[in-house]
């Protein structure tokens, strides 16, 4: 009987080891997935920014052009497939990140009474979970305001017969106090994106094993520039829309 129990315990242990190893469960594998999904989300940031900078033209023609673009982005098959892949990546990056943060918390059950982390690391690197949570909350708000409305919500029709997303955007950020709050939330979220990228951009390369005396300084410089320029360019859009209110 006892030998059966020992055998059972061994099998359980092997099963546990198997589940935690390889490209599915190990600590390093979880980081590969964070890195790959993170890099994909970085590429999305560029495309999304370039498309939505069209909102800096708020003339009648500009708005109609934006609505044509919005229709294209929600109906062209290749982009639809990419968008499902994108939603999955956002969810996976968030779930994997929360799981990693929970495991990391468990790895140090007792905190230090005296702790001076600023002497050995930057704030953003230690607060990726907090920054990510802020960004996720913003993504939910942002998608409920525009993505949901575009697909299933109440939305007007413009002169070309397209769904009038431009007006939805303008109303969201120009609507009195509520609009002002939305602009502020947008700016807070972009600050979180900036700090998240400042650590995340170069971290993604290190996780994939890319650390080279010649290229790593370039990656870090590009990452720092990206983390400032891209969120700043995004932030210009709602501020511009708010300022354009007559």
């Amino acid at each position: 009987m006892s030998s059966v129990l020992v055998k059972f315990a061994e099998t359980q242990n092997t099963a546990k080891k198997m589940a935690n190893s390889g490209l599915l469960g190990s600590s390093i594998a979880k980081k590969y997935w964070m890195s790959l999904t993170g890099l994909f989300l970085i590429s999305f940031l560029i495309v999304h920014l370039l498309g939505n900078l069209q909102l800096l033209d708020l003339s009648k023609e500009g708005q109609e052009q934006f609505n044509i673009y919005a229709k294209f982005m929600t109906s062209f098959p290749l982009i639809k497939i990419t968008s499902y892949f994108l939603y999955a990546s956002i969810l996976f990056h968030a779930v994997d990140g929360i799981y990693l943060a929970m495991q990391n918390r468990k790895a140090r059950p007792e905190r230090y009474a005296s702790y001076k982390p600023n002497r050995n690391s930057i704030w953003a690197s230690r607060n990726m979970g907090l920054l990510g949570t802020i960004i996720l909350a913003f993504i939910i708000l942002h998608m409920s305001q525009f993505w949901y409305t575009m697909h299933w919500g109440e939305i007007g029709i413009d002169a070309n017969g397209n769904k009038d997303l431009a007006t939805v955007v303008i109303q969201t950020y120009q609507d009195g106090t509520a609009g002002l709050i939305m602009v502020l939330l947008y700016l807070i979220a972009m600050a979180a994106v900036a700090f998240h990228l400042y650590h995340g951009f170069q971290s993604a390369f290190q996780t994939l094993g890319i650390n080279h005396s010649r290229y790593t300084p370039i990656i870090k410089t590009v990452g720092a520039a990206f983390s400032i320029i891209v969120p700043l360019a995004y932030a210009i859009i709602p501020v511009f829309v708010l300022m354009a209110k007559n």
Partner: protein
Amino acid sequence: MDLKLKIWRQANTNSKGSLKDYQVKNVSADSSFLEMMDQLNEELIDKGDDPVAFDHDCREGICGMCSMHINGEPHGPESGTTTCQLHMRKFKDGDTIYVEPFRAKAFPVLKDLAVDRAALDRVIQAGGFVSVNTSGNTLDANAIPVPKADADAAFNAATCIGCGGCVAACPNASAMLFVSAKVSQLSLLPQGKVEAKERVTNMVNQMDLEGFGNCSNVGACAEECPVGISLENIARLNREYLSASLTSSK
């Protein structure tokens, strides 16, 4: 100099510990931190109190035994040193110094400031070796050519003294810097390449089983490392693990 100390006291692994206040007077600025602790312990013993338990061995910075989280950093405020090489001239008269054990789930407190770092030994046992014939027919070490750059990188990784300061410094209590140094020192050399895939897989598995946290590239480990092990080793570990996972037969 006279100092106030806040020292973590804990009777054993299962008991609850707390910070206790102590005072040491007339500490020489030339004494090491461990000698200051010795001075405190002699006073405690003279009074019939329980001396503070802490790890130490060589006291010349190469054994990796002395631990202690001093004023918010592993091995104290001086960079590139172990606690035995930290001198009291780094502190000022009247200072209050926090002295805590290395904190990690994988490093249970044995007593006071002494923690059990056997988890690191078990990671080594899982693969941190080269299988060689030790029956007497020793080969000449220079028979296999090793490029100078590889030898240097392997040597730099091999300077890891296994103190666990990286785990103590990491906000996630991750042991990646230690494991990456131990993987690198062998996988860079021809003798170590033979078992490279098995080694990295087994050592990472053991690291995970011990309950260390996940690396999030914070870099606190390398900043606090007493011997300057660099993050390039972690990148190498990430590369090796990826290639081993994709190409292993299991």
